[in-house]
């Protein structure tokens, strides 16, 4: 060929065709419908009206890799999902390109955690990196433009005509830790130095100076008379097996011996007054890194129960001894304990006697060790780097492993997920089918496990706040509240009224924002395209207000212990007022489109039904519970952050089907806008953060002026406030249901244990009850109606 002479005719011809092919390719990119976490929300937003990705020639997300040539890695790469990503990449059409979107995909970002791959470039070649956490939709557009520039430099004619030379698609070599990249978040050359903060966390604590500090004791409450009666009744009934733990910061707490646990729980569920019908949460604490280990057993099991009758909670603690302790399963008392116990088994290594299916649930099946034990490494950078060979080996299990069949029966097994348009995240359904009918459904979760609970044990109480909004990335600041309430309860921090109202207002904005995304995607799931194009318009209005107030969009990280981060900016009231005047009309428009639509009704009415009794028994919360007919909303029943001062109603429905869940959520939006209106009109004057600076980050103007505030600022920002030894639980009604935080402090600058009770975990566990017996098409309608989000299930 003419390669010897660069100005030869054939080369000029080739460069002409190169330009032509590149021009065609760069304006007809086909991104795959592939999202991992928060970043995907911003990527999807880039397709909506305001940003309109279509202008750049990358119009439609393709659901199958066969039809796609661009993979935008949008979000955190989990070790459990990495083999799937590699497979999808291999299955894409040639030539193909990869954009790494967001800090997590670029380098692991803020998730230097055991379950996260520190950068997609360790397993896939990357053409363009988009920085940000998450990058804004404009940044996605910029990424596409950068990729187009890269495509312009390719010379694809030679490979197309099977000639030697030329390039097309991604050819960047993989990065290898220690050679072409450094996983160290501080950059290369720092290997000899320990990461800042490691000397004050378990197991050695040698750098901890928190012990020298004094704090007041944790908050102590006086038990209500009904709690005292219950405590006495239990003591007479179970004698020595049961002992009240006093004082307590938040609720009646009892210590039970392992052998009587099941009896106590049965009594509390069926006979006690009040009856505790719901198992709110079940978790364990590894006590091995306590500052005073002699006061603790090896492990402690913690059960939180909830009574609908008296709107109260109760905590049971069971001390366990031994390296791999065994405890009786309570799945025959509460069926919902099934997943919770599997999670404790997986992450803590505690065995449950009599459990029907005790296997790993969160971590990959071939994982070594139990991550939430104090002896397990917390950071990915403490472990061997994840490589492409690992991604080829550590495959998810075959679907047949999950399906239990009686002899001779051979159902059709269908994998739906983890990568699927309709699973709304990384979740795997394994459906057994008889024709079109679903005869069995198994779920595999854990593809989105970001190790948040473990991270909570190494970040100081303040440093942990940015991780909160990422637990439910569509509910933003609403996530921050339960954690802060728990810490504030434990340390007895009084929040000024103004800060409380600001928190309520932002939480309700995020409820609207979440429900708008839900409305759009749900309508889309059952066949209506139109709402998708419109609801993101109002969502952008909400995010604009949020951005005006907080500076952030999805993850503002703006609430603080003791208040919020800053004063409301100038012009916030006008922006909120304008939104309040517009939104109800827009909502009515959507209602007119959907509510009486015969197709929508046919797809949702009577589909995916769950009875109230089942919903209560399985710990279903939020709109999904209220659509079964129970008037249960924490904002009314156990008010927090001043919700008792607002006038609003709790919408309910009775059918418990997909349509009822739709009705409840729509009505909730109307109530949210009422709350926002009241909050904006009656915003109290006063401080935005408490004036007791012991635990909080002081106002900047104070910090610059007086030495006391400066010292508090210095201590609380660097080594973190010393929160008194104790424990507290707080739960809030976030958009998807009840999110509870249980924080345990050992009197140090960071939590000893943070437990997140996400609404999704319980709401998704009941999925087989909703789905089995329905037809396969209804599965999609049911999945959408439950409105879950993966980081909140897998945490």
């Amino acid at each position: 060929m003419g390669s010897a002479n660069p100005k030869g005719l054939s080369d000029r011809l080739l460069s002409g065709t190169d330009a032509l092919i590149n021009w065609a390719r760069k304006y007809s990119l086909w991104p795959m419908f592939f999202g991992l976490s928060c970043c995907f929300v911003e990527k999807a937003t880039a397709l909506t009206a305001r940003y309109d990705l279509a202008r750049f020639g990358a119009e439609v997300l393709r659901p199958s890799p066969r039809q796609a040539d661009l993979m935008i890695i949008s979000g955190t790469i989990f070790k459990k999902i990495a083999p799937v990503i590699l497979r999808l990449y291999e299955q894409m059409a040639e030539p193909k390109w990869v954009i790494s979107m967001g800090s997590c995909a670029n380098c692991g970002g803020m998730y230097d955690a055991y379950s996260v791959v520190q950068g997609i470039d360790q397993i896939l070649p990357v053409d363009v990196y988009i920085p940000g956490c998450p990058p804004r939709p404009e940044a996605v557009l910029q990424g596409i433009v950068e990729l187009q520039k890269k495509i312009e430099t390719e010379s694809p004619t030679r490979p197309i005509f099977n000639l030697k030379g030329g390039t097309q698609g991604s050819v960047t070599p993989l990065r290898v830790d220690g050679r072409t990249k450094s996983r160290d978040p501080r950059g290369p050359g720092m290997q000899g130095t320990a990461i800042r903060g490691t000397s004050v966390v378990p197991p050695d604590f040698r750098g901890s100076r928190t012990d020298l500090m004094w704090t007041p004791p944790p908050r102590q409450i006086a038990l209500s008379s009904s709690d005292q009666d219950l405590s006495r009744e239990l003591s007479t009934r179970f004698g020595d097996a049961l002992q009240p733990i006093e004082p307590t910061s938040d609720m009646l707490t009892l210590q039970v011996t392992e052998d009587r646990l099941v009896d106590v729980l049965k009594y509390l569920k069926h006979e006690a007054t009040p009856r505790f019908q719901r198992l709110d949460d079940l978790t364990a604490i590894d006590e091995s890194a306590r500052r005073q280990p002699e006061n603790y057993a090896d492990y402690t099991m913690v059960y939180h129960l909830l009574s609908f009758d008296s709107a109260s909670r109760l905590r049971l603690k069971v001390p366990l001894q031994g390296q791999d302790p065994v405890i009786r399963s309570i799945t025959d008392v509460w069926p919902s304990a099934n997943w919770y116990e599997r999670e404790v088994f997986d992450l803590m290594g505690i065995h449950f006697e009599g459990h029907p299916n005790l296997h790993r649930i969160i971590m990959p099946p071939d994982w070594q060790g139990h991550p939430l034990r104090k002896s397990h490494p917390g950071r990915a950078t403490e472990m061997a780097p994840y490589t492409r060979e690992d991604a080829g080996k550590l495959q998810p299990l075959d679907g047949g492993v999950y399906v239990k069949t009686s002899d001779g029966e051979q159902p059709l097994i269908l994998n739906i997920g983890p990568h699927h348009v309709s699973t709304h995240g990384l979740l795997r359904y394994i459906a057994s089918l008889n024709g079109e009918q679903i005869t069995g459904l198994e779920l595999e979760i854990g593809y989105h496990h970001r190790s948040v609970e473990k991270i909570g044990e190494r970040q100081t109480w303040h440093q942990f706040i940015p991780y909160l909004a990422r637990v439910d990335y569509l509910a933003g600041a609403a996530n921050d509240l339960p954690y802060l309430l728990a810490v504030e309860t434990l340390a007895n921090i009084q929040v000024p009224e103004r800060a409380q109202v600001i928190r309520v207002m932002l939480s309700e904005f995020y409820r609207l924002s979440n429900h708008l995304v839900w409305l759009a995607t749900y309508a889309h799931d059952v066949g209506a395209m139109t709402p998708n194009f419109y609801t993101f318009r109002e969502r952008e209005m909400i995010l604009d207000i949020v951005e005006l107030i907080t500076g952030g969009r999805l993850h503002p990280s703006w609430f603080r212990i003791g208040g919020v981060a800053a004063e409301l900016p100038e012009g916030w009231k006008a922006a909120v007022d304008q939104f309040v005047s517009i939104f109800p009309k827009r909502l009515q428009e959507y209602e007119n489109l959907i509510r009486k639509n015969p197709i929508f009704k046919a797809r949702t009415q009577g589909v995916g039904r769950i009875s109230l009794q089942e919903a209560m028994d399985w710990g279903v919360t939020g709109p999904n519970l209220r659509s079964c007919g129970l008037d249960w909303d924490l904002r009314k029943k156990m008010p927090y952050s001043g919700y008792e001062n607002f006038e609003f109603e709790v919408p309910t429905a009775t059918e418990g089907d997909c349509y009822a869940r739709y009705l409840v959520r729509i009505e909730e939006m109307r109530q949210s806008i009422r709350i926002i209106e009241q909050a904006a009109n009656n915003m109290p004057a006063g401080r935005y953060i408490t004036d007791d600076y012991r635990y909080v980050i002081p106002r900047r103007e104070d910090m610059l002026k007086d030495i006391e505030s400066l010292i508090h600022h210095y201590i609380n920002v660097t080594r973190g406030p010393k929160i008194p030894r104790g424990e507290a639980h707080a739960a809030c009604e976030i958009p998807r249901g009840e999110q509870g935080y249980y924080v345990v402090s050992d009197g140090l600058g960071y939590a000893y244990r943070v437990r997140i009770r996400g609404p999704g975990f319980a709401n998704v566990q009941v999925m087989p009850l909703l789905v089995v017996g329905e037809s396969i098409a209804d599965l999609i309608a049911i999945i959408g109606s439950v409105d879950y989000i993966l980081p909140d299930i897998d945490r």
Partner: protein
Amino acid sequence: MEPMIASGTLSPWEPGVFSLTIYVILILIFVASQLIIAVWLGEKKKTVEKLRPYESGIIPTGEARLHYPVPFYLVAIFFLIFDVEGAFIFAWAIAHGKLGWAGWLQISFFIVLLLLGLFYIWRKGGLDWGPLTQKD
């Protein structure tokens, strides 16, 4: 209604072996060139993963050849009944003037017979579509 007489409105049809041969050869050349270009220019990167069926990013489970209830099959069979019915009725409709009352009676008998069949299918539940067993 009589069939339209088409003489003079269409070009004369003069079948000839020569033009047909040319036509067939052109088609063969065209098809062959399409196939050759596709084989020549097509991407030939075959890896294990690429050739594997796509099932949401997971290695597919089991095989696709198993006993499978097919409600579609019944619907397809029923459709055949009404399809054939259409063929007979259209044919009759074109010539209904010539066939007279006797023809009308015959076709009515035919339609009634089919309607009985439809009624039978309906009563038997053949038109019900949905899950084979009801939930709960």
